[in-house]
């Protein structure tokens, strides 16, 4: 049989005149493209365009190009469909992929524009005037009673439920140790501490070296309950129950046995080499009542720390969200269909769920109409690519946003979508020691700090131009958004006017 019935996706071209045979490309490529026989030899069929070799070739001698199919063009039978069929005909099975949906469904963030002050309403210069990005996540009381204390100062008579304090309204989304490397977890948590935010452990437990970062950690509980015990539940500032993930709504987690090495095994508390299965349903949750039972079991075990519930945005997201808030969740984490993943069946990733922009607007609306919006904070995720996306999400009703892919890109990820292979050349989505050591946690943390500080500056600049001096007072300001190129119904769901109105 032919080795491959299709031409390679990319072409790796080495300029042998420039090449000085240092073999760095051989060491750096984790997908086996390079070999050496008098000179560098390439096997383009194995290239995934992760750009590792290109980045590390000292002579700029390597070029990775797309290798377009020389088949008759078809609007209907795109090359993606043809290639997928060949792959399945050859090997039989579901196609797997990594990262978020890459199909060209509309991106509503790119069809919304922000307002700014002119003439009659002054903008604020964030460099000279105080600008508040601090955000508190957690249940807020229905009313606040104020009394004056003996020193004459005003103070709240109402007792607040515990809140999670963030210095920037951006948190790191759950990525499990197992899916990503320990150095990735370290980079995230060190950056979170430096910037004053939190990282979510994901469902794979927390490595013992990271327990000391508790103030900047949300621990996650998923159906497989990996690494979950009383100390773990109490290790962070909040507990997140994972119901769903945007990239694979209704699909569980499955960490293949090959990835369960010694350290992962210790952290997840399962033997090495066994599959770690986290089926989509928690088999103890079949109703909102059952969810409430787990939320309060966790609260009892943690002396009432805030509990977050993470769901994938699906068609009925607004009523589901209402149920979750009524079940007692303090934080509602919405993961849009473009959210990332370490591994998911391509067919699910590309065809299930709804965009975060619409889901967020619908949920915020629904909770307001039911008079329960104050009972839970909303975290929006599922492809927040820039500070602009973050500000737009907050205008649509989010309290904060979560970033996963953006954080990994800051760590070097090229979004090659090969995370499920465990061969990540950038040392992020892999457990192979020779690869994981490519990511230095100190350096990684610094890059993440740089990213978050840059976004914080940009958010302040945007708020200044809007004449707003605190992000919490901007939440849900849909009046400051306008749609471009959106139909009436979409504008209605987003709760925004078209540009020009």
């Amino acid at each position, binding site marked *: 049989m032919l080795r491959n019935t299709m031409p390679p996706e990319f072409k790796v071209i080495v300029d042998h005149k420039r090449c000085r045979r240092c073999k760095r490309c051989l060491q750096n490529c984790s997908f086996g493209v390079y070999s050496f026989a008098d000179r560098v030899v390439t096997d383009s069929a194995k290239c995934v365009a992760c750009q590792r070799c290109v980045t590390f070739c000292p002579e700029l001698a390597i070029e990775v190009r797309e290798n377009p199919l020389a088949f008759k063009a078809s609007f209907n039978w795109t090359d993606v469909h043809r290639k997928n069929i060949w792959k399945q005909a050859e090997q039989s*099975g579901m196609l797997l992929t990594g990262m978020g949906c890459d199909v060209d469904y509309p991106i509503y963030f790119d069809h919304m524009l922000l307002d700014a002050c002119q003439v009659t309403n002054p903008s604020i210069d964030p460099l000279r005037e105080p600008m508040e990005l601090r955000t508190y996540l957690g249940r807020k009381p229905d009313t606040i009673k104020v009394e004056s204390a003996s020193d004459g100062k005003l103070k709240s008579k109402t007792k607040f439920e515990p809140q999670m304090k963030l210095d920037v309204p951006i948190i790191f989304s759950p990525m499990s140790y197992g899916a990503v490397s320990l150095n990735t977890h370290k980079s995230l948590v060190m950056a979170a501490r430096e910037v004053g935010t939190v990282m979510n452990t994901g469902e794979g437990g927390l490595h013992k070296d990271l327990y000391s970062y508790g103030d900047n950690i949300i621990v996650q509980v998923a159906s497989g*309950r990996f690494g979950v015990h*009383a100390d773990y539940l109490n290790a962070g500032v909040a507990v997140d129950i994972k119901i769903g993930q945007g990239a694979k709504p209704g699909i569980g987690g499955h960490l293949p046995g090959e990835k369960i090495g010694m350290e992962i095994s210790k952290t997840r508390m399962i*033997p090495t080499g066994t*599959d770690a299965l986290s089926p989509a349903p928690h088999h103890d949750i079949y109703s909102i009542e059952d969810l409430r039972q787990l939320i309060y079991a966790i609260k009892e075990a*943690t002396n009432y720390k805030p509990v977050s519930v993470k769901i994938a945005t699906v068609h009925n997201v607004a009523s589901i969200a209402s149920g979750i808030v009524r079940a007692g969740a303090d934080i509602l984490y919405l993961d849009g269909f473009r959210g990332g993943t370490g591994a998911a069946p391509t067919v699910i990733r590309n065809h299930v769920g709804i965009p975060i922009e619409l889901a967020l607007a619908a949920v915020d609306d629904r909770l307001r109409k039911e008079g329960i919006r104050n009972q839970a904070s909303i975290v929006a995720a599922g492809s927040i690519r820039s500070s602009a996306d973050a500000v737009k999400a907050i205008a649509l009703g989010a309290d904060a946003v979560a970033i996963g892919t953006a954080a990994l890109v800051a760590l070097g990820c090229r979004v090659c979508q090969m995370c499920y292979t465990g061969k990540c050349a950038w040392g992020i989505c892999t457990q192979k020691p020779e690869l994981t050591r490519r990511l230095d946690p100190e350096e990684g943390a610094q890059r993440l700090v740089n990213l978050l500080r840059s976004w914080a500056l940009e958010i302040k600049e945007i708020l200044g131009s809007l004449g707003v001096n605190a992000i919490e007072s901007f939440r849900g300001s849909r009046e400051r958004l306008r749609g471009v190129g959106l139909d009436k119904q979409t504008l209605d769901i987003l709760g925004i006017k078209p540009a020009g109105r």
Partner: protein
Amino acid sequence: MENKISIDAGGVYYRKLNEQIRAAIADGATEIGLTGVNGQRYIGDGISDKVSINMDGVPGNDLATFMNGPVITVHNNAQDGMGNTMNEGKVVIHGHAGDVLGYGMRGGKLHILGDVGYRVGIHMKSYKTKIPAIIVGGCAGDFFGEYMAGGNLILLGLHHDKDKPIVGDYVGTGMHGGTIYIRGEVEQYKLGAEVGVMELTEEDNKTLKGLLTEYCTDLGLNLDDIMNKPFIKLIPISHRPYGKLYAY
């Protein structure tokens, strides 16, 4: 030194009751007697101290959830969700218990005298020397040992009427670790595709005897009466049940 304390749980809301239990432990109580328990949830939830808690009433859902040390004895029936993600300790039930017992349990023991409901011992795990055990004296419902990944799940089928099956359907569906021991026979159609039926080895008999001796002591039963009938052993055929689903 023993330090006994009695708490009247009659009409007390669960949150208050659990606060009282935790406060008593903080005050040095090692043996806590609860009177008037009537459906309060989360008793023993997340407690890591090696205390004993006894009650005559019926505790509510999620008894011993995330529990990490105590020994709880219930001289009555228990409800759903008992031993959820439990890590260490023991619960002894002198009666029946409900659905989803020992979910994701990774250590400790559940000793139940009577019958249990659906989805008992699902996602049970083990790691190194931490091997949890659930022993059910009566019969069990569907999905017994579903997604089981470790530990020992023992079903005795004592004192049940002849028409009732000892276990429901889908036994060990998705099982990829651990062992299920059943005293009696189970029809092949009831077993999940991932499960194989084996004869007990010398090692199994030792494990079983060890676990059952403690069970009999706790519940006042006679070991010989239990061992007088042969057991079957169910184990997963592969610890990678879903290894071959994907192309590329």
